[in-house]
């Protein structure tokens, strides 16, 4: 009968490293699967997002979101929500809440709101155009 082989401290260390690495692989693979982009799934609105991006992500017309924030539709506003919040002297959280409410009210069972008729848009002060790189 052969004696069971003894494992030295170095080999234990490698086994521990191997097992910990596999645990990391499994935990983060599960997390990746949980976060994986799914069609038609709403993702949380973040401060870096722009109105066109939120509109694109939530499949909501842009004018609904501009109206919710009392912004003019033209020119297309490419600023992030954090910049809009700063301009309107409000918190980013309140801007996000206003957008979430507008999105909720423009989806079934509610009818999609109509755009303001031309001339009736109530922009308090049109924001200045922001310089950008070549578009």
């Amino acid at each position: 009968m052969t004696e069971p082989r003894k494992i030295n401290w170095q080999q234990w260390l490698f086994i521990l490293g191997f097992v910990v690495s596999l645990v990391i692989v499994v935990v983060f693979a599960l997390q990746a699967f949980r976060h994986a982009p799914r069609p038609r799934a709403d993702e949380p609105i973040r401060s870096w997002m722009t109105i066109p991006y939120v509109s694109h992500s939530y499949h909501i017309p842009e004018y609904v979101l501009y109206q919710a924030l009392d912004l003019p539709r033209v020119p297309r506003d490419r600023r992030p929500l954090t910049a809009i919040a700063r301009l309107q002297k409000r918190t980013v959280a309140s801007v996000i809440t206003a957008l979430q409410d507008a999105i909720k009210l423009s989806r079934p069972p509610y009818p999609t709101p109509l755009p303001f008729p031309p001339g009736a848009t109530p922009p308090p002060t049109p924001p200045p155009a922001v310089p950008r790189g070549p578009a």
Partner: protein
Amino acid sequence: MNINDQLLAALSLYGLPVLFSVIFASSLGIPLPATFVIVVAGSFAQLGDMNIWWVLVLGAMAAIAGDQTAYAIGHWGGPRLAKRLTKWFGGALQLEKAENVVNRWGWAGVFLSRWLVTSFGPPINYTTGITGFSYRRFLLWDVTGEVVWVGLYVLAGELFSDRVQALIETLGSLAWVEIGLIAAAIFGWLLYRNLRNSRK
């Protein structure tokens, strides 16, 4: 607001200069989310807020310029530092072995760390410079890898342009999966070698 959100907000405000700066700095080893920035730039390109060709060209140029700078720093400053360290702490033989490994397998390390295991990119830039890895080979595999990186991630940003936040979080988790797999392979190989030697 975390650093990722601040950089992405800056990207939507200022566009290409932010894209270039973040990618360049990240290639030097400054911990900035270059992959997130290039993915979001792909999404903005899909929305028509950024020009896709500018994103591709400037993204690749920034990455290549950063890599070349890191290689040059390693090349000009590294050997002197390595010589001093080995004089103080020993390990000249190990350094020579490392140089042999880099010269033999460096091209694969350079190429794969550009687009697959991106967290290893900056250390490999400096290491190849320090160990005197052929500059021509470094340039060839660096340019090839960075073009693949920019193309892949901009395309991912375009394809998932309405779900970028989810994509960013998935990519962040996948980076850890890659690191875990590499670590498991290294520990597995070390264990196998150790068991084989102890049997002899």
